[in-house]
């Protein structure tokens, strides 16, 4: 077992035992469901919208090279600097070099999971650059030195009182724990940071190839300030975020709001089309877009799971996932939590180290059912299991299944064995749950059914005999 799995198992033991927190998470999400489903039902045909969205993303992903080139050409035509980063390190170095060249002193950051993915804050801080998260949720987890709990709702696990305590520790007395008050506290601090900053870093929800724009969706308005006030704006965007046409946003923006947050449309949807143009009075002097691969092309090379690149990071699959709701976001130990994280992390960071996330699923399929762009999530978990075994199985598991295969592929042997089933079960029921019970992992928390008097085979044979006594 690698250290990562051990850590996962340890964390899961803790979080699954924390019933109050699990209940809190479920309650928090019930508000989302109450808003989301009516909105979804208000679509003339939500299923058709999903099919269309999947088709657009299919085209986007299967002709990624062309679309990205178009994007770069159009963006550059308006003075945007586009950089293709193959790895996280290249992206980090690009930002660091920019900071040095431009004499950057202060940085604000809008919510960006790609930034988390490549550990951008850590890299900047190591070089002495302070970074302040401007998204309220991200700001809170930053103050707590935590990672986001959910890639759309970073601090959904925290209760009001915990947020107040966090603020008090960092900022002194803050008064009440009313959400409005806490928001005002953060706002006062963050406004100063916006005015001070000379570099704003963001991600993007969509790259529009046709027009060379990036599209950012948010509810607070902080991303607009991050992108507009500082002298330089850098957007760090995964290459899969591309959509071919401007009009595609007419489908994707409401869909993202609906599936992601239970909103018909998110508060602010802003398109950025380059740095300040001649004659304009505001906007950054420089606008850089870093297009990040960081192993996304490994997924692209896998025809079976390529559709995972359709993801618009709405987070809906997390919200419906019983695993996520019971183990919590931090237990995953990944940038992307929940079903989509369990699917893509093995591709992004190594199958053998991250295959346990694909194993830690009942394959219930709630994720696949909810995903607005129809990613076949739970079957991809199954494929990851298969791929991991193909590459390197566990010897005793293989032996077990080989043995079982031998037994189950010989009907006579099976018939003989099944006669032992009832006495075996009866014997087991005497020590069920004891420390030496071989199925203790089951019986510790659940009982087994009481053994029947006869197996179905036996019952059936008797019944047939009675029906035709001479046979």
């Amino acid at each position, binding site marked *: 077992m690698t250290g990562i799995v051990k850590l996962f198992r340890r964390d899961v033991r803790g979080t699954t035992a924390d019933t109050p927190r699990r209940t809190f998470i479920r309650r928090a999400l019930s508000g989302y469901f109450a808003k989301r489903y009516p909105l979804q039902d208000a679509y003339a045909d939500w299923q058709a919208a999903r099919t269309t969205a999947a088709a657009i993303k299919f085209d986007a992903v299967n002709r990624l090279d062309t679309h990205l080139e178009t994007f770069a050409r159009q963006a550059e035509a308006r003075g945007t600097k586009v950089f293709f980063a193959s790895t996280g390190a290249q992206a980090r170095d690009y930002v660091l070099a920019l900071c040095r060249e431009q004499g950057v002193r202060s940085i604000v950051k809008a919510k960006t999971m790609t930034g988390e993915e490549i550990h951008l804050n850590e890299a900047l801080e190591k070089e002495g650059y302070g970074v302040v998260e401007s998204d309220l949720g991200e700001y809170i987890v930053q103050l707590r030195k935590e990672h986001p709990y959910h890639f759309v709702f970073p601090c959904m696990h925290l209760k009001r009182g915990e947020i107040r305590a966090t603020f008090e520790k960092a900022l002194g007395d803050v008064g009440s724990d009313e959400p409005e008050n806490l928001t005002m506290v953060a706002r006062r601090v963050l406004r100063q940071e916006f005015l001070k900053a000379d570099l704003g870093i963001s991600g993007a929800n969509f790259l529009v190839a046709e027009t060379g724009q990036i599209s950012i969706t948010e509810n607070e308005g902080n991303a607009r300030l991050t992108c507009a006030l500082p002298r330089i704006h850098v957007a760090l965007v995964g290459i899969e975020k591309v959509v071919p046409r401007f009009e595609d946003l007419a489908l994707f923006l409401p869909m993202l709001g609906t599936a992601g947050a239970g909103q018909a449309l998110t508060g602010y949807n802003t398109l950025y089309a380059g740095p300040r143009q001649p004659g304009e009075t505001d906007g950054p002097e420089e606008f850089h877009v870093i297009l990040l691969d960081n192993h996304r092309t490994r997924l692209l090379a896998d025809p079976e799971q390529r559709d995972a690149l359709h993801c618009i990071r709405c987070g809906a699959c997390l919200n419906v996932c019983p695993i996520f709701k019971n183990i919590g976001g931090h237990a995953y130990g990944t940038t992307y939590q929940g079903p989509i994280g369990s699917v893509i992390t093995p591709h992004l960071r190594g199958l053998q180290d991250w295959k346990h996330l694909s194993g830690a699923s009942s394959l219930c399929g709630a994720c696949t059912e909810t995903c607005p762009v129809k990613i076949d999530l739970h079957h991809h978990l199954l494929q990851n299991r298969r791929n991991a075994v193909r590459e390197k199985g566990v010897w005793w598991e*293989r032996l077990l299944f080989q043995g079982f295969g031998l037994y189950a592929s010989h*009907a006579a042997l099976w018939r003989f064995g099944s006669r032992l089933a009832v006495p075996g079960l009866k014997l087991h029921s005497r020590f069920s749950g004891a420390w030496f019970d071989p199925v203790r992992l089951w019986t510790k928390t659940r009982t087994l059914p009481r053994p029947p008097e006869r197996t179905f085979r036996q019952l059936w044979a008797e019944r047939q005999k009675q029906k035709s006594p001479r046979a």
Partner: protein
Amino acid sequence: MNVSLFVPCFVDQLYPHAALAAAQVIEGLGHTVTVPESQTCCGQPAFNSGYWDEARPVAAQMLQAFAGADVVVGVGGSCSAMAKRFMPELFQGTPQEEEAKALAGKTWEFSEFLVRKLGVEDVGARFEGKVTFHDGCHGLRELGLKEPPRALLRHVRGLELVEMKEAETCCGFGGAFSVKFAAISTAMAEVKCESILETLGEGVSCIVSNDLSCLMQITGWLEKNGKPVRGMHLAEVLASR
């Protein structure tokens, strides 16, 4: 119609009466039921664990056992989904691909068979009391069987179906997952069972499902926690008179 009954291995050994009830219901509608002797297991445990090479000989045994069948009816959503949905994938590119597709094409889950193949919703059953229904994930999402079991239950005289809030939420069984990640599996069972326990206040006395593996998880958790609730396979309800 000549129906070959597919009795998943754990049903054979732990829940014989559910399979017997399924046979009775089908016979009651005037069809002949046979139980192929050489059936063993569908290979799902190995398949779901990623050991596809090891799953194939087991699944091949199933292909062979039902090769001569006209119609195969499975007692349980999960194993039926294995035959209908996953076997063609498992045998893709092997000499048995066509056989697997043929089996998939003629296999029906029990409630699906009654409602969609036979067009029967009323089997003449009588069962006094209120029940709640648990959707097994494989039946619900791999096979799309939200409606058939409910249609059948609606027609049972004396029975009232009380829907629980978390009807579609996974019970946490998931095969080997239930022991490999027992902590997560148990937490999921707890959420499911709390939703079931809520319905007891409305007079529910029995939890019905078309998947016995889920029922094993659910009733197992309830009993362990000192709140036993009777679990019944849909077929047992439908065989009640």
